[in-house]
């Protein structure tokens, strides 16, 4: 029941949230809460609610940390993954979940993203990707499509965009996936898998920003933007049953890459064991 979820996992005193009407971020925040709830409920996992830490950076998406009733830390712009690195290293039993946005995670924080992926440190990064800087009023981000308009691209964006899930894969992420707002159930399942994954995991979740991105680029209202997601973002099973021709211009919702590389804190535990033995000798 959604209302139960709110009472159980949201900080009611701090709602309603600041996001605009039609914003996709609330749906993604709900997906995260449902994913954590289902994992805690599942006794097989032995998850304690207080073992979850939500870390965020700066931007619209990053406000989600304050609404979710867990240990939460709203850090500086771009640095959420770096803060999370210290938290996870200090206490590897914690489930550290980073909530970030396309700018926070792939522009100012891009360096931390690729290095956390390379190390395979056991963090779960959920990127609320709305193709725009919303908090500051609609400037182009590293995921704004080429040619689209933004307040800082009044003649159209000449940058070529990142595909954040592929970027993470390229950087060596052992789990990289894509989700969206329209396919909430599928996305929730992907987030659950990402949290359960031992190494570094990234889920690039396509949000919608009707206020700044949609309006500027004549994408219609929130409903129209969600319809676009329905028609162009395709869950795994259906995607692979489609012909090459039908797939053209469409994107997969699901897990893009998966590996069981050794996890960083487990590897470091071996360093501690080796160093303590040497010190004793």
């Amino acid at each position, binding site marked *: 029941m959604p209302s139960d979820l709110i009472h159980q996992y949201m*900080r009611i005193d*701090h709602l309603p949230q600041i996001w605009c009407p039609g914003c996709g971020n609330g749906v993604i925040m709900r997906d995260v809460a449902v994913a954590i709830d289902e994992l805690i409920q599942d006794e097989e996992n032995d998850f304690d*609610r*207080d*073992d979850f*830490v939500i*870390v965020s950076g700066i931007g619209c998406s990053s406000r989600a*940390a*304050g609404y979710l*009733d*867990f*240990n*939460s*830390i*709203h*850090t*500086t712009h771009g*640095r959420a*993954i*770096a*803060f*999370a*690195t*210290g*938290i*996870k*290293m*200090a*206490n590897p*039993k*914690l489930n550290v979940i980073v909530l970030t946005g396309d700018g926070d995670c792939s522009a100012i924080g891009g*360096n*931390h993203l690729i*290095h956390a992926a390379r190390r395979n440190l056991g963090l779960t990064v959920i990127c609320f990707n709305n193709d725009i800087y919303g908090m500051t009023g609609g400037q182009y981000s590293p995921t704004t499509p080429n040619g689209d308009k933004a307040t800082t691209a009044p003649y159209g964006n000449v940058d070529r965009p990142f595909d954040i899930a592929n970027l993470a894969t390229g950087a060596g992420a052992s789990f990289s996936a894509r989700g969206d707002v329209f396919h909430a159930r599928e996305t929730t399942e992907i987030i659950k898998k990402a949290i359960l994954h031992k190494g570094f995991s990234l889920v690039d979740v396509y949000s919608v920003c009707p206020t700044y991105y949609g309006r500027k680029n004549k994408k219609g209202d929130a409903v129209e933007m969600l319809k676009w997601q329905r028609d162009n973002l395709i869950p795994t099973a259906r995607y692979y049953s489609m012909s090459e021709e039908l797939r053209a211009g469409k994107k997969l919702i699901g897990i893009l890459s998966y590996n069981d590389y050794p996890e960083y804190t487990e590897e*470091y535990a071996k*360093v*501690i064991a*080796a*160093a*303590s033995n*040497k*010190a004793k000798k």
Partner: protein
Amino acid sequence: MSKAVLMQGNEAAVEGAIAAGMRFFAGYPITPSTEIAEQSALRLPQMGGKFIQMEDEISSIAAVLGASVAGMKAMTATSGPGFSLMQENIGYGVMAEIPCVIIDVQRCGPSTGLATSPSQGDYMQAKWGTHGDHPVIALSPSSVLETYTLIIRAFNLSEKYRTPVIFLMDEIVGHMREGVELPNPNDLIINRRKMSFHDGANKECYYVPEGKYVPAMKPFGQGERYNITGLAHDVSGFPVNSNEIADKLVTRLLDKVEKNVDNIVRVEEYLMDDAETAIVCFGGTARAAMDAVNAARAQGRKVGLFRPITVWPFPEKKLLARLPQLKNILMVEHNHGQMLLEVQRVTRCEKPVHFLGRVDGTVISPDDILAKLNEMEDTNHAE
């Protein structure tokens, strides 16, 4: 055989930090601080602690703050260029009240400057580097042994006042080796910060009882859920858009240090009792000043050394207490006049304040200081 061992300043910083309970280090290589990272990488895992080489200095300080939030005493070390990169997150540590220690082994700037040459050019940056009004505690050692004992104090102050403490070293002390006999650290260390909220707190992590200045909170993962943010926040740790609450918060942050300044400030005064000239000098530079004071005394001149060990907040009261007996002051530092500004501010230039500084990467020698003292005397006679 002597029990002493030959130890480098940078190495002593790590040994002192480990003695103080430091179990997490994140950093990025930079001359002349690199030995601190190397020694931490070697020593921490032997103690069950963690070392990580991050992708830059911004992420290094961020990881340190994260580790501290999760319950570990944490430290990073860098030099000027990296210290500049760390400034935003140092401000975050101040605002969110996260204890940690940041070592800056200063080198000649600006920019890449003279990477291997000694400097004290980050003195003002240590105070004003991060934006906004904020308190700063900064300590500066003059010897290898003092590096060891003082960094333990840096951790103590950081824990006690829940604020990042800047440990302002310089190339002279960082790269110098001396024979040291380490004291028993147990006499020097305070425990980890209080592990529960203040009495009377309604699970409000930033609650502070009347008459106190420092909140108390559990690390993450120990059964209390709360929020931390760099935005202006109320006692529960949530952002608020209230001018009154923002004012109260910043005032309390500043008061934390200001109202406890007498406990935080430490100075070494050498032959100051009858001194008519005070050489004000800190860090590695003070070693030359010490020799200069002895040489001047041998010539029958009443010169003493006033050495701030706590360099921020500046030891205002202690210098003012000496002012009536002084004829003049000589500020000696490896920069173009930074602590000089504090000395001038505090003394209101009631007595002549002379200056000897250097930014060319060479080291000020005792002879340089003696020559300056002679020049000052000639000026007096001319008057």
